[in-house]
């Protein structure tokens, strides 16, 4: 594993430039945060394919949808919280209802807009996006997966929601097979319990699994990069084997990865579960790593929850 860190938002800006020649029908929208989300570089290089619509997210989503009906492939970029809430009706009634090929680039997701505080932190976006029929929901774990998710989304014929972190995070998958929508990655093979993780906490889950291994506990570690449609088969096989599942996400425990896993396993392979995430609270300003730790998203917490599940 590489120890280098790259911010997904930087990788996003670079991926747009890299994919632009291959996808001439791609156009990019931003809502006055192009400097932050890194779409500005694309706008400079391709001014005819870039639309900064000002701070008006609802209009942005529907304008992009109108373009999509004419054969273009819009990438709609802004902060995740504002995209999923200020653009919710538009995502639901126009983009998803009509199954339009719009890529929703949901930046500054989770707690990653850390210093801006609860007003900007997006810990319900997966619940919103997941509840919309036709929406595919992808949560990349590093900058490599982000670029792959974007390319895959541009090839899809329906809407794709991609969750993007603002801050530098470890590069995990530089040498791994490319992300495939709907397919979970198995990062560790084990029989004592399952750890299912998505997004930024993936590197924490890897470290926790390695610590557990040193304590004689073998974890089946699954990285669930697609929350919807979720890889139900891989989850069910793992849960049948271990009977115990810890989920880890940078999201409210209501409506995100933990809920999605529980929905599958309650039907197909009931297991004892522990859901790690934000416990249905409003968060606060602070350094990103301090926030993650305070709200329970840490290697220590994953390890202790695993041990708690294993205790009789």
């Amino acid at each position, binding site marked *: 594993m590489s120890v280098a860190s790259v911010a997904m938002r930087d990788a996003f800006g670079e991926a747009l430039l890299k994919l632009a020649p291959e996808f001439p029908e791609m156009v990019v929208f931003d809502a006055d945060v192009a400097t932050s989300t890194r779409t500005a570089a694309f706008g400079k290089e391709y001014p005819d394919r870039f639309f900064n619509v000002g701070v*008006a997210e609802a209009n942005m989503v*529907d304008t992009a949808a*109108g373009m999509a009906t004419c054969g273009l492939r*819009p990438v709609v970029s802004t902060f995740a919280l504002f995209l999923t809430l200020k653009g919710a009706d538009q995502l639901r009634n126009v983009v998803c209802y009509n199954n339009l090929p719009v890529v929703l680039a949901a930046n500054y997701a989770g707690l990653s807009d850390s210093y801006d505080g609860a007003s900007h932190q997006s810990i319900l976006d997966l619940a919103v996006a997941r509840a919309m029929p036709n929406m595919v929901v992808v949560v990349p774990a590093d900058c490599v997966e982000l670029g792959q998710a974007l390319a895959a989304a541009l090839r899809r014929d329906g809407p794709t929601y991609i969750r993007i972190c603002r801050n530098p995070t470890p590069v995990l998958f530089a040498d791994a097979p490319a992300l495939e929508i709907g397919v979970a990655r198995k990062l560790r093979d084990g029989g004592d319990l399952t750890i299912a993780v998505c997004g930024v906490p993936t590197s924490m889950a890897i470290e926790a699994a390695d610590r557990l291994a040193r304590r004689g506990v073998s974890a089946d570690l699954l990285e669930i990069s697609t929350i919807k449609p979720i890889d139900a088969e891989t989850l069910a096989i793992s849960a049948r084997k271990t009977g115990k599942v810890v989920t880890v996400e940078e999201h409210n425990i209501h409506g995100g990865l933990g809920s999605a896993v529980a929905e599958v396993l309650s039907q197909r392979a009931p297991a004892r579960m522990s859901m790690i995430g934000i416990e249905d609270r409003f968060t606060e300003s602070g350094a990103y790593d301090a926030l993650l730790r305070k709200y329970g998203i840490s290697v220590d917490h994953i390890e202790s929850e695993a041990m708690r599940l294993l205790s009789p």
Partner: protein
Amino acid sequence: MQPEMQPAHLAVLRETDRQRKSAMLQRLAQEFRITVLDILHERGTGHWGGAASAAELLVALYFDALNVRPEEPKWPERDRLVVSKGHASCMLYTVLAHRGYFPVDELKTFRQIDSRLQGHPCMVKTPGVEMSTGALGHGTSVALGMALAARRLGKSWWTYVLIGDGDLNEGQTWEAIMAAAKFKPQRLVALVDYNKVQLDGPSDQIMPMDPLPDKFRAFNWNVAPVVYDGHNVAAVLESIDWVKSQREWPVAVIYKTHKGRGVSFMEDNAHWHGALIDDATYVKARQELLKTLEALP
């Protein structure tokens, strides 16, 4: 399924004399009002007020202004009309069916289970519907996107959006009006069916929108110098002539209309936005509509 041809209606497409064409379209709009009343009464559900208000506008657009191919609804070069006031669905479907997009016979399935004719327009289900609407406020943004797509793709189709009073209440409509004036795509046209009555009552009481032309002008739109009579087909055709002669974009045209137009006791009355049309009301209303139709040249 082959669309059922309506030679009497489609003949109007070949009419070149403007006066005769206006008269034919005027009759068509009134006939469609009767069809809509029949369907709403028969089905016991749907919106009369906004449908009747938009009859002449929709007829003039589909039977004159729009360059479309009903036999090839997704023809890439076609003109687009986004009906942002989606509750006019029953009139839209009636016009589309008679224009040849789908069988007229299918109109009776309106709002019924398994029908292609949803309560509010659905582009995925109904041939000819350019955008699913119903939730208000979406249409102007979508139309802006279509007009910008034409620019990006080097195409010359026209994009119209039909806006109602309720639409104008939505903040998103004004976001779109701002953005359209920034990007100024050619051939983007907003048509306002300005009947000044919304679901709960007169818009002057619910949410006043006057002075509407000034509002559009203040947002840097090119606004038609007169408010046209949206129930007079000749006036509507004249307004489209004006639109087509413009060089400054985007363009807005405001039409004075009457909600529930055609039935004296339903006109300008918010109750008939979506009220159930009972048997006695139906008989009275139909007689009035027929009487007017018979008096038309």
